[in-house]
């Protein structure tokens, strides 16, 4: 069996909402199935330092405080853009949470009107309306887009009925371009913008989302989907799901 090689972008800078937990969950769920899993930490600087870049089959990036996002911004746009562009185009899997989801879009318009160019790989843009509109904070639940949930790999690993749960905390509101596929449709909470019911985005086999909590700890089926998809496996050996199912059931009642 081949190995899951997770490329973890900017671990030191972008780990605001327990993002690290996502990588911990992926590697724990691999270990329980005797799937080899390794993590390549990708920090600021030139990518030529990473010999196994082409072997990465799951790319992960979290979110951070404003100051940290500013500190990686230039590097992200200049040093990482070509790699991420090719990575997504090749159909490999990725997960971009919160701040990094925003940075993958076309632009981010701050409350003062200043526009920050994004990577433009996700057909979406984000606007911060300042104090006029409250931050989107709280527990959130959604139904995964059928585009993803009808994927046979997803069906094989899903034991939670195509739903996804989490916690969101974002000031910016994200709007998808016409034709872009949301990751999910919100059933409780705000999602992308608290207006159109969409949450996140799917581009190729990459997911952008506002769900943290961390998302993969709360949604083990999504973690398994990413593992299977990254390794080109039709399904994965089942794990004891008692606790995660109980946790998921309890979460559904949360307001």
């Amino acid at each position, binding site marked *: 069996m081949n190995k899951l090689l997770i490329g973890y972008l900017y671990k030191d800078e972008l780990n605001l*909402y*327990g993002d690290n937990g996502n990588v*911990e969950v992926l590697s724990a769920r691999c270990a329980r199935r005797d799937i080899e899993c390794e993590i390549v930490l990708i920090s600021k600087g030139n990518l030529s330092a990473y010999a196994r870049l082409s072997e990465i089959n799951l790319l992960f990036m979290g979110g951070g405080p404003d100051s940290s996002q500013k500190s990686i911004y230039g590097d992200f746009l200049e040093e990482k853009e070509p790699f991420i562009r090719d990575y997504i185009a090749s159909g490999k899997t990725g997960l971009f949470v919160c701040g990094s989801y925003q940075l993958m879009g076309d632009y981010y318009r701050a409350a003062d009107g200043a526009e920050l160019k994004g990577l433009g790989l996700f057909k979406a843009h984000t606007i911060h309306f300042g104090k006029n509109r409250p931050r989107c*904070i709280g527990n959130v639940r959604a139904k995964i887009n059928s585009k993803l949930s009808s994927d046979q790999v997803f069906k094989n690993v899903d034991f939670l009925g195509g739903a996804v749960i989490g916690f969101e*905390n974002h000031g910016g509101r994200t709007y998808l371009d016409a034709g872009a596929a949301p990751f999910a449709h919100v059933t409780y909470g705000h999602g992308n913008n608290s207006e159109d019911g969409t949450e996140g985005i799917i581009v190729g086999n990459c997911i952008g989302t506002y769900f*943290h909590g961390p998302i993969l700890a709360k949604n083990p089926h999504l973690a398994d989907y990413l593992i299977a998809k990254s390794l080109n496996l039709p399904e994965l050996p089942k794990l004891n799901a008692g606790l995660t199912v*109980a946790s998921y059931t309890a979460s559904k009642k949360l307001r």
Partner: protein
Amino acid sequence: MLFLTLLITRFLEAFIRLLSLGSGGTWPGHVALKLYPGVLSASGISPSIGTVLISGTNGKTTTTKMLCHVLRGKGFVVTTNASGANLLNGIASSLLSGTPLFDKRRADYAVLEVDEFTLPTVLEQLKVKGIVLLNLSRDQLDRYGETDLILERWEKAVNESEINYVVLDKSFEYFREMSFTSGAEVLNAEDIPEETLPEDLKERFHAKNIKAVLTTASFLGIPFEETVLLLTDFQAAYGRGEIIDFGGINFHLFLAKNPASLTANLKAFEKRKNDFDAVLFILNDNIPDGRDVSWIYDVEPLLILSACAGKEIYVSGVRGFDMAVRLDYAGVPILEENVTTSVPEIMKRIKKSSVKNIAVFPNYSAMLDFRKMLTGRKIL
């Protein structure tokens, strides 16, 4: 005006006590601030020597209690907010309650713990001699926002105030980067070498809190040896290393409200693991806790694993399952029957077991509720 406000708050205090409305401690302050918005600036409210504020993410309650203990041991009359009511209302309540109506002895010192977000507002209104800044780390992101912004607000508030001294810990880079331009004397708590602290004190309390107290006390004219001596009979604040015997089982309460405090308490627990046969985690997501519990993944899984190894594990609270899943991913074996969101239910199971000494790691509201259940009353 101050006299009238004092009269009214005294009446309210008596009323609250009469009806034993335990949580009503912040009402008098709330009413006083409404009646007399400038009450905190009134000169009659100031203690005769000065006010010290203690703020930071972790250690406020313990450090405040420690400093009060030392000052009281020296014979000073000290006003404080021992209940931990550290927002503007609670601070006003404590100060008013410590101000005599007639010409009885006024307090010498006020030692007040202040919520990190509220500190600038308090500094604006209250005449303060010194502040102790303990630390700042991730806590309640949904309420406070990011730590950078809090540091900026602190720096600005200190520079716009007339305080004489700031005690802080320069081993933290974020404190080294702060620049104070108001002429306040900056005292580095880290100047006290760790090995000079008595072992028994270090075992029970965080060294950084002890150092902050020693530094402040020394600035106030109390020599190092005397402070150490005064601290020998210091008892932990409620829920912070406190031991409560309930039905023959010793519950040791270690408040664990954010990644830094859970990490520090797990490390402290590990050193004396043999004293315990079980661990209970209680995780809530009420407003005072912060609604977001993702922080449990900011605690090193290897630390969780080594602390829990060999102990019976129980998990409860509104977010008990989130905690159980987190422990499970850290590699801790969890029995599903030892996980329930209901605290009374988990207590039944603990009572049925052979557990005699259990370490409890509750977050904030969980600690208050649990403590109330064990003691049958609210704090203080």
